[in-house]
């Protein structure tokens, strides 16, 4: 009769996987053989199985009555205190509201598209961009600190909502496990667990985060370690229309934060485009030198050739945005192992 050390963690784990049906046919056969030849092993297996069955058969505790009423009351209180989106109305009211929002969003998208086209026509850098010299002089303004022209979106008279800004950040790393652990920790520390959906497939992990844009800014600002441990970083600011996304290769943490720091949707797209062009012109080593020449402590500075400022004649100012509610944004972080 063979005697196995049944208290070894490996044996416990084998038995645990067996009773859960997680072993292959060959492994199951091996466990049955061990049980047939070792009485203590067989006893431990039975004990574990019985314990599991006991837990499975425990009575399900019923929730107390009235939970739906309490939940509804709490949501109504939050709505009255303007703490939650108005999504708890009756069916007819909600559908009407949805239809109005859909129409308003469609009008705003069309108008934004036209405005964006105008801005692109006026301010797109010339094709010979690589020939522009980069000067380290006080005359060069930083992207993030440069005064953004107050482009005011054309507003519907029904609603002043702008589209939700969304972006993606793809990082590749030879140590994806550490990268994922770090990202999960940062998400948790920033209280974004409940706002994050995650999925993994074939070595690629995606984190879909939709939350208050300030929280996302704080998340990105805290992710500097990601850059230290990754080999590739690509940021995409999603435009309103298909084909208008802006891709920033070899993006830095400071650049991502600078994008999210802009107050307006179009400003974020424009800043992202500036960084995309800048990174295409300036190699990584040159950027490193430029950064070293600047005070990086707490300041998000980037350098780019001077571009002409927008003048008021280019501004189709149709109105002023009303005071904003909490602005939501989406960030998708993709981690790929190499």
């Amino acid at each position: 009769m063979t005697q196995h050390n049944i208290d070894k963690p490996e044996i416990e784990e084998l038995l645990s996987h067996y009773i859960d049906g997680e072993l292959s046919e060959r492994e199951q056969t091996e466990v049955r053989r061990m049980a047939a030849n070792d009485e203590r092993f067989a006893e431990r297996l039975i004990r574990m199985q019985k314990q599991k069955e006991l837990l499975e058969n425990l009575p399900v505790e019923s929730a107390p009555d009235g939970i739906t009423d309490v939940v509804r009351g709490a949501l109504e209180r939050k709505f009255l205190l303007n703490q939650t989106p108005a999504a708890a109305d009756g069916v007819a009211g909600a559908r009407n509201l949805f239809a109005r929002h859909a129409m308003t969003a469609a009008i705003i998208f069309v108008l934004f598209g036209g405005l964006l086209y105008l801005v692109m026509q006026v301010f797109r850098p010339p094709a010979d961009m690589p020939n522009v010299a980069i000067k380290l002089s006080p005359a060069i303004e930083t992207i993030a600190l440069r005064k953004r022209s107050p482009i005011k979106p054309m507003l519907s008279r029904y609603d002043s909502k702008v589209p939700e800004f969304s972006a993606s950040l793809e990082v590749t790393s030879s140590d994806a496990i550490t990268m994922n652990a770090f990202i999960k920790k940062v998400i948790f520390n920033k209280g974004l667990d409940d706002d994050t959906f995650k999925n993994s497939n074939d070595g690629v992990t995606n984190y879909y985060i939709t939350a208050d844009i300030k929280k996302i800014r704080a998340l990105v600002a805290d992710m500097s370690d990601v850059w230290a441990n990754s080999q590739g970083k690509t940021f995409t600011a999603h435009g309103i229309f298909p084909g208008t996304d802006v891709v920033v290769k070899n993006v830095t943490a400071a650049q991502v934060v600078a994008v999210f720091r802009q107050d307006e949707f179009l400003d974020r797209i424009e800043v992202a485009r500036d960084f995309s062009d800048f990174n295409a012109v300036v190699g990584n080593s040159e950027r490193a030198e430029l950064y070293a020449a600047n005070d990086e402590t707490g300041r998000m500075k980037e350098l780019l050739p001077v571009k002409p400022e927008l003048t008021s004649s280019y501004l189709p100012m149709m109105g002023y945005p009303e005071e904003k509610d909490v602005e939501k944004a989406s960030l998708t972080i993709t981690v790929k192992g190499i």
Partner: protein
Amino acid sequence: MEKTVSNISVEAAERHENISIDDGALIRQCQLGDLKATEGLIIRYQDRVFNVIMKIVGNRDDAAELTQETFVKVIEKIGTFRAQSSFYTWLFRVAVNTTLNFCRKKFRVSTQSLDMPVGSDGENRRNLSDYLVDRTEIDPAEIAQKKETVQMVTAALGKLTEDHRVVIILRDIEGMSYTEVAATLDIELGTVRSRISRARSELRIILEAILK
């Protein structure tokens, strides 16, 4: 039919699959602000969520409040729910996180002693002990439904470490698969496997001490 390991797993899978097929329609209606759909979603899951939370905190009043808080959070955020994730695992992730945050804030470490819970008599202890070592033919459902058994098992669960308690509750009581547990707790599959094994081992030792 005698319950075997394999057909218990099949039952759990079928139960989850049937629920998830209907969840999509309910969630879409919730997102449109349909009150009836919202109530339907809460009623569908409230017992199971309450049961899991109750097993973690061991206190009915706290479990009721945490269940309500869970559903308030979920309904608030249902507009942002994406199809890339399972609603079921998302719901329980919110429930577990809410409960664990509560436990940590209140320093609710179980202080239940290993002495026999009040009201348990020697006969029930012997019956449970005999059942666990397969010295009796008693049906697991019959013995598990006894109030004294529930008290003893709940006391034992309360003595587990937090990580072990949560995985064993989600796996053996709620009936989640390893993958679902991993998605709910946002941990690796390998971590789930090893943690469940250690949790079962720890529970066995605690139950043996209770039943002596």
